[in-house]
């Protein structure tokens, strides 16, 4: 550490007192210890997962020379070993996060390994979804009993894959589409740990990973509720992204040191992406072509998703602004306008197309304004990119002449240049002001 080398010189020159020098030395020493501990945790977890996966592969060789009973015993080996390690971590090393997390990760892999190896010995194929369900249910308690965030992350990845397997992959080519809502209650079971994490350690790496993985999982799995009224899912997704944006800007999430959480990014990108998709005519004309498909939509699973998500987002919006409207941002309210646009689209598709296009344009301009007010180049360029994306979309499906389209591109390009130049110039002026 360079500063440590300078300390003696600074003390000699009486710039700092010997006590201050000692305090500085102690500070960096403790910091180094802390980062060393973090590395130990990271490599501990990675090592445990690799060893677990390696054992699965070694046993998957399916040693024919071993008798069936020996193979069954060998299948239990990693599981028993992982359980013993976890018990050791609980009894002797309960304060060591590295021990708890690494042994939990190993146990998580070992449970899956044991079930699949027994299946292999007895040639039980079964369905991948039921294998995943058993595995995840056996590993859920690890999150709470071992207080393990890695187990929680693995569990969230697992239930997301389980949901996709059950709803997207297995019945993708079949006409038989049973309804499975297991993902939702399985997700609820993992939330208490996440809540504790956000409350007690908002800036830890585990919380940051959860803040990305959880919304990502919801985005992937929300589509699984779609059955016969899948157009309604656009409203559901719009409300979900609105809810994400509101979560990302409220309470503990807004105060986090690294406050660009998955909620904020996914909420913002998702809203823009849906609006851009629906700025094309095709969706709206298809919507009005077959009005019969909307009979009894209000009691469909898609409608339930719309009710729950819109009500949650609206509740959070009201809660955030209970003391008057603060820090207004278009992303926070777009989800409220969307059901109205959808209703308009059922009557007049062209009206809805016009409104959506105007909305994207207005959002882009407001985001640019937000970027200027906050003196944030990233936000400013995000607004400009939104408008560019809108123009690119219109490039494909509108009958505007090439000259006007060309001019629009030149204008936006010049806008990019001018906006960035002006903001940087403004920054320089502020820096040079005494």
């Amino acid at each position: 550490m360079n500063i440590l080398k300078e300390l003696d010189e600074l003390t000699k020159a009486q710039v700092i007192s010997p006590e201050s020098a000692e305090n500085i030395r102690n500070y960096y020493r403790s910091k180094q210890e802390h980062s060393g501990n973090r590395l130990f945790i990271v490599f501990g977890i990675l090592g445990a997962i690799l060893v677990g996966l390696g054992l699965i592969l070694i046993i998957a060789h399916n040693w024919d020379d071993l008798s069936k009973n020996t193979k069954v015993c060998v299948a239990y080996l990693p599981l028993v070993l992982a359980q013993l390690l976890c018990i050791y971590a609980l009894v002797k090393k309960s304060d060591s996060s590295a021990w708890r997390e690494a042994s939990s990760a190993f146990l998580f892999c070992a449970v899956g390994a044991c079930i699949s190896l027994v299946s292999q010995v007895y040639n039980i194929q079964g369905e991948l979804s039921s294998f995943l369900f058993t595995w995840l249910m056996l590993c859920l308690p690890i999150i709470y009993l071992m207080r393990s965030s890695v187990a929680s992350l693995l569990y969230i990845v697992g239930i997301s894959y389980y949901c996709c397997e059950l709803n997207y992959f297995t019945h993708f080519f079949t006409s038989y589409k049973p309804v499975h809502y297991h993902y939702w209650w399985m997700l609820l079971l993992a939330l208490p740990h996440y809540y504790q994490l956000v409350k007690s350690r908002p800036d830890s790496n585990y919380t940051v990973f959860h803040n990305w993985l959880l919304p990502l999982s919801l985005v992937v799995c929300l589509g699984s509720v779609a059955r016969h009224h899948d157009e309604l899912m656009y409203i559901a997704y719009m409300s979900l992204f609105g809810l994400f944006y509101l979560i990302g800007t409220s309470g503990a999430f807004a105060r986090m040191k690294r406050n660009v959480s998955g909620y904020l990014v996914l909420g913002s990108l998702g809203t823009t992406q849906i609006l851009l998709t629906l700025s094309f005519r095709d969706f709206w004309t298809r919507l009005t072509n077959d009005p019969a498909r909307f009979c009894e939509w209000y009691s469909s699973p898609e409608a339930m998703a719309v009710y729950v998500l819109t009500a949650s987002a609206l509740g959070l919006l009201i809660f955030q602004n209970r003391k008057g409207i603060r820090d207004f941002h278009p992303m926070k309210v777009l989800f409220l306008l969307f059901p109205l646009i959808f209703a308009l689209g059922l009557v007049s598709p062209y009206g809805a197309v016009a409104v959506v296009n105007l909305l994207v344009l207005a959002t882009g301009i407001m985001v640019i304004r937000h970027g200027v007010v906050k003196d944030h180049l990233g936000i400013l360029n995000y607004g400009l990119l939104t408008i560019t994306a809108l123009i690119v979309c219109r490039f494909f499906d509108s009958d505007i002449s090439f000259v006007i389209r060309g001019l629009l591109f030149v204008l936006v390009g010049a806008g990019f240049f001018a906006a960035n130049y002006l903001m940087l110039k403004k920054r320089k002026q502020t820096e040079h002001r005494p």
Partner: protein
Amino acid sequence: MKTTGIILFAVLCLIQLAVPSKMVFAQEEVLASGHEYRFRTAPVDPYDPFRGKYVTLDFDAEECKRPATDTWMRGESVYAVLGTDSAGFAIVTSVHKQEPQEGVDYVTAKVMHVYDDKLMLDYSFNRFYMDENKAPAAEKRYQEANRRSSPREAYAVVYVKKGEAALKDVMIDGVSLRILAAQPVE
């Protein structure tokens, strides 16, 4: 608090051990007291990253007459009641949506295809796991035995009890595929 945590964790460990053990006992029971059926087969050789190498089996008894009373959908679970043909190989005598009453042997299956007059079924016991070094040789042996012109008889030995099935072995002319796979191919 710490003791409670350890006790709860010990309970979890027992449950984690009990679930695969239940699978072991269920299969052992079917193998010990189930009825033996021989299913004619034809293999391919895919790779499962979780469970190593195996030979996938196609059965002659996958095809059965479609009952006209119900509507059948691709992907749904059904119960296939088993019988034997004159040569002693397994055939499906009937297909049901509800679990058949006791006294008949049946297995669970998935409807793979629906035709005008017949159904194609997919059984849960269509993977035969092999030592990864022997699986390619096993595949070769089995492909030879399953050629239409081949005089050799290939079949899977499956034990069945109350809807549960356990695949015991795959045989070519009465010799286990595991033994044949260990011998050099001529």
